[in-house]
């Protein structure tokens, strides 16, 4: 491998599991997530000499987010969001991390695509408002407002039935 691309394979091995995790929550589909990450990494490779010393993971995330938008535009979606979650979330204590991941992934799939990207990058990947704004290509204020709206929708999707006394 040339010096221009040295370190790329190591980066893929080290970082792609985390990127696939993010991609899974963005797409709601494991195969699509693998495809998304692989394609994003392939598009990063020609620019590796330029990005490897400058937050390469952020670069790949940006490519992923934009590729995912292209997927939506082409109706290339493995996900089939439904209005009803198979198992309500917060009533079950999140002791089972795997189950909780599935429940949250299904709840995230109910969010509008752009909102979902922001919530996943902000809270799952724990990026700052400014980092998310840079990756998604929106203003920081948009990240804040969409984060709040996304959490509100998740709260509804994950909530247990509203107690009688709170309905009035």
């Amino acid at each position, binding site marked *: 491998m040339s010096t221009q691309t040295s370190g*790329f*394979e190591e980066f*893929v*091995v080290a*970082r*792609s*599991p*985390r*990127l*696939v*995790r*993010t991609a*899974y*929550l963005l797409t709601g589909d*494991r195969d699509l*997530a*693998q495809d998304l*990450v*692989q*394609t994003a*990494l*392939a*598009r990063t*490779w*020609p620019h590796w000499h330029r990005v490897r010393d400058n937050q390469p993971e952020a670069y790949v995330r940006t*490519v992923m987010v*934009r*590729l995912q*938008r*292209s997927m939506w*535009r082409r109706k290339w979606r493995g996900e089939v969001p439904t209005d009803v979650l198979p198992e309500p*979330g*917060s009533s079950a204590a*999140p002791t089972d*991390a*795997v189950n*909780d*991941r*599935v429940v*949250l*992934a299904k709840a995230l799939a109910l969010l509008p695509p*752009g909102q979902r990207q922001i*919530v*996943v990058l902000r*809270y*799952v*990947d*724990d990026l700052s408002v400014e980092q998310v704004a840079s990756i998604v*290509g*929106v*203003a*920081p*204020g948009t990240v*804040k407002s969409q984060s709040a709206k996304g*959490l509100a929708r*998740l*709260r509804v999707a*994950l*909530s247990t039935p509203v107690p009688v006394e709170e309905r009035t």
Partner: protein
Amino acid sequence: MSHDDEIIARLGAIGQPGAEADLGVDPAGVLELARRRRRTRAVLGGAGVAAVVLTVAMSMNLLGGRTQSQSPAATSLPTTTSTATPPATSSTTTEAALLCPDRGVGTGPGLSGAIDLSAALVPGMVPTDAVVCRYADVGSGTPAAFDADRVALAGSLVGIPLDLAHLVAGPADACAADAGALSYSLGLQYADGVVWVTPGSGGGGCPGATNGVFETQDGVLPALAAAYQARSWVGFAQGEAPRWACEGSTRDETGPATFVPADPTAVRVCLRTGMSGTSTDLDVGAASGIIAALRALPATRGPATCQPTGRPAGPPVLEVLLTFADRDPRTLRINLGCRPAVVGGTIVAPDAVAVVAAITAATGYTLPS
């Protein structure tokens, strides 16, 4: 712990490494995919481009009609040779990307690489190349009516984002075009891909426009027709513009108090006097003095209520429209008779002397002292 805190904690937890989704991707597969992409690009940029362009042209029903010319001086040429043996240069790839889409198979949706088409009709960047395709007899509704001429737009393209990036979202009308009507599409080449803008689905005469994702009710057909005729981007004639020439957005108000929140891609200065107005488009080089003056302003958040300064209030009013690659266009208003003198949403500055000086230097406008 509030509900939101709990959800945030749960989201953070699933971001941690775990057994369920920790499969990465195979580096060898990534490299093979990358090499395939590189080979494809090499073919497009090299000697194989003739066959590729020919294939694309055939698939677009172009060979039975007229071919397109990059030369502003020629509108239609006999077919085959120019498409079969194009020079193998990088511009050939651009030419292939900007072949007119076939109106017979749809509305010519926007094609893109990494360009986000969902928020605006065109990106905020200035395109590197632009073409206008003209379609004849769109109202007949048959593929046989397809007949496209193409002109490459010469001259400055800075007016394209300034005219089209701020059009508001809304459904493009699906009306039936009159038989014999002309319609146009605008093809824009960017570093990251291509965008096609077409009128409403009925073609010529129908209001609205779309890039395949974003739709607007604002009509762009007059500007496309004018560009086709002039072979350059001339924008909208007075009375045809769907939006005031300097209309932008002041929604991005939650960040730092600054009039220029990012590097602009293009700048338009509007001078309103009474009911009339004029505007000047500037590339970022020509507008560098204005941008620097705006950045140097002591911007604060505060009320934009006009406090007369003793100069005659009201017109003329200067407005500056800034377009950006990654955010909404922004309009700043400069009222010579008020304090604060510069207003951009909730961001204000008391004095506009330096900015007005930069504007007059860049535009040649004469303002009352």
